[in-house]
């Protein structure tokens, strides 16, 4: 697929891959074998009817293809861009055995974008929403999906979102150059157009509690509050000026538009020599953001190797193309400061890989006496996020598991409390957009069954 050239794209925040033209899309769709057993569909957590939407693209019925996608996926333009298709549908595509799999993600993006640019006069008719009131907490992928499906089933849905913007990580975390905010807003609008009431600036557990929601007549509640709590390593100097969590760095830039400072009021520190700690998507996004903010040198510091890095291959590749330096097998142990409390560098250890750990990846072990220094004037710590404890803390009786995730039944999203369901990162720990959407979908069905059985 055609992309913006690396030398150019690091000077703007436009998307990197251009996407298909209609001709390219139809050509790519021709390649699909329309397999009877469609292995690709089993690789998709929300069971998109992949051969069917590809067939419609082939026939030139692009809005039909988009409608087909939306039958099971409320956010296709988002998923077409950020899903790790290489580990899902494309990984199991029959054509992938011998050559390149069908570019399912790019086709999905194409159909969804085409639909946005050519909106149908009046999309599919909705059932009247006259069933019970259901509250959804959090407007990330999990909450939005649950809300859309519940509205489709005929429930009256209200979403309560803590921030001033819906979208969750799609709005505050994933950068513009990977997921334009215009796309997120349009997909959110599709959900509110279904009659879902979206209320912003509502911190559940604080502005409004679970008990109050039940008192207000909500018959069931879905919690999709994500894994928003940034983790730090707990090493000396981590609170120095110029050390950010990835969440703060990306929130300032994406949600608060600090890249447009001073037109926008929120500032962000623009480092010259930036170190990003971690090897996941969040680290890649932070590193590539730093380049676009004008950093001269950006280094990813990761304690394992490229092979173990959890980031998508595509993201590591893009980051490398753009000039991000990778320092693998490196572990920061403390940060150094100047007199005013600003970070000026770090001391790190070289690592080697030992026996596999519980994640199945080889455990990194420090090499004794290998301490060395790295200069930097900005550090972004991207070593992961934990579930946001605010709502669980305010909700006694809600059973929590490992690292504070809410315990749920995988198939229905049921929690330990009656009428309360949960899904997405809050129930799994940080995962993916599509898995959060899958959980939202299953919980919507779980809620429907629960309310039906109650009304009988």
């Amino acid at each position: 697929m055609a992309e913006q050239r690396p030398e150019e794209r690091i000077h703007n925040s436009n998307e990197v891959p251009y996407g298909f033209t209609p001709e390219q899309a139809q050509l790519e769709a021709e390649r699909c074998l329309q397999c009877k057993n469609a292995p690709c569909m089993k690789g998709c957590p929300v069971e998109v009817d992949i051969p069917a939407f590809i067939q419609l693209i082939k026939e030139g019925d692009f809005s039909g293809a988009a409608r087909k996608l939306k039958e099971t996926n409320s956010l296709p333009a988002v998923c077409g861009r950020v899903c790790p298709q290489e580990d899902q549908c494309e990984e199991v595509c029959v054509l992938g055995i011998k050559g390149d799999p069908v570019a399912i993600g790019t086709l999905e993006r194409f159909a969804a974008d085409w639909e946005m640019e050519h909106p149908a006069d009046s999309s599919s008719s909705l059932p009247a929403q006259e069933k019970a009131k259901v509250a959804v907490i959090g407007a990330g992928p999990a909450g939005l999906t649950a809300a859309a499906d519940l509205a489709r089933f005929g429930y009256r849905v209200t979403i309560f979102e803590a921030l001033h913007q819906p979208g969750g990580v799609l709005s505050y975390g994933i950068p513009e150059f990977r997921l334009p905010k215009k796309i997120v807003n349009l997909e959110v609008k599709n959900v509110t157009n279904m009659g879902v009431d979206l209320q912003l600036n509502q911190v559940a557990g604080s502005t409004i509690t679970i008990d109050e929601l039940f008192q207000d007549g909500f018959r069931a509640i879905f919690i999709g509050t994500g894994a928003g709590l940034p983790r730090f390593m707990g090493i000396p100097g981590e609170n120095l000026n110029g050390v950010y969590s990835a969440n703060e760095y990306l929130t300032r830039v994406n949600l608060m538009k600090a890249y447009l400072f001073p037109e926008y009021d929120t500032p962000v520190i623009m480092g010259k020599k930036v170190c990003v700690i971690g090897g996941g998507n969040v680290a890649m996004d932070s590193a590539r953001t730093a380049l676009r903010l004008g950093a001269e040198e950006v280094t990813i510091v990761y304690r394992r190797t490229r092979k173990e890095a959890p980031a998508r291959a595509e993201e590591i590749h893009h980051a490398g193309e753009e000039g991000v330096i990778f320092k693998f097998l490196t572990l920061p142990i403390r940060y150094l400061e100047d007199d005013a409390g600003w970070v000026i560098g770090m001391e790190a250890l070289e690592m080697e890989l030992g026996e596999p750990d519980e994640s199945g990846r080889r455990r990194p072990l420090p090499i004794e006496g290998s301490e060395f220094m790295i200069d930097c004037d900005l550090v972004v710590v991207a070593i992961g996020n934990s579930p946001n404890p605010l709502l669980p803390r305010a909700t006694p009786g809600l059973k929590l598991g490992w690292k504070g995730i809410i315990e749920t039944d995988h198939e229905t999203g049921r929690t330990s409390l009656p009428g309360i369901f949960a899904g997405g990162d809050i129930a799994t720990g940080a995962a993916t957009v599509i898995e959060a959407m899958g959980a939202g979908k299953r919980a919507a069905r779980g809620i429907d069954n629960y309310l039906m059985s109650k009304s009988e």
Partner: protein
Amino acid sequence: MYRIIEKKKLTPESVFLRVEAPRIARRRRAGQFVILRIDETGERFPLTIVDSDPEEGTITLVAQEVGTSTKKLGRLKEGDSILDVTGPLGHPTEAENWGRVACLAGGIGVAEVLPVVKEIRAAGNFTQAIIGARNQDLVILEDELREAANELYITTDDGSYGRHGLVTEVLHDLINDGAIPDRVYAIGPLPMMRAVADLTRPYDIPTIVSLNALMVDGTGMCGSCRVTVGGETKFTCVDGPDFDGHQVDFEELGKRQKIYIPQEKCSLERFELSASGANVKE
């Protein structure tokens, strides 16, 4: 949208606002705060909820106009709306019956201490409010505090009103006179809170400070507001804002508050230029 139903200037550089926010008004407790965003290009910034009227569905805010966001707020008129108001955030201030509690406040902290004094007195304590300002013109909410506290002491830096000196001197005298408070609460500029904590440490008086770290989301999501308390990193917005003053690393917090000074200056110059430009046109 959150409509301003009453606005008045308390001093040339501070503003008092009553804002419609029914859910927040119903739930808020003393010591909690809101995060505001004035307009589409605005930043998110915290202000203490000074008071609320659950019936009317309003909250009271008092802001010192120090930079772009607070000056933007100060320019809004009655009937205007604030784009976003989120809250109530943070833990409410603890209030038990300890006996005698001294509540010290400086600068805009005087507004922030008002709900705390009420809450602590309601829990059965004898409350001594000790408030300080640079000069007489900057003394705010005197009547309200006189009514709220059992005793009110006022100091000014230049001696133009009340006692000449600092709030810590009043506390020092109280302690010297043998009237050692059972607990101390301090809110205001960092150096003042630090001085209070240093003063009470030798006497082992439990001392609570309300920290004003820089914030973004206010819900525990970014870590901008992290502070070191007792050697551990805490997030002011969700773990605080009240902390044990004897455990707080004030040095670090002081440095962290200065992170954006060049940007704040740049932003303010730009804002004042555009604001004065608008006046010329009128």
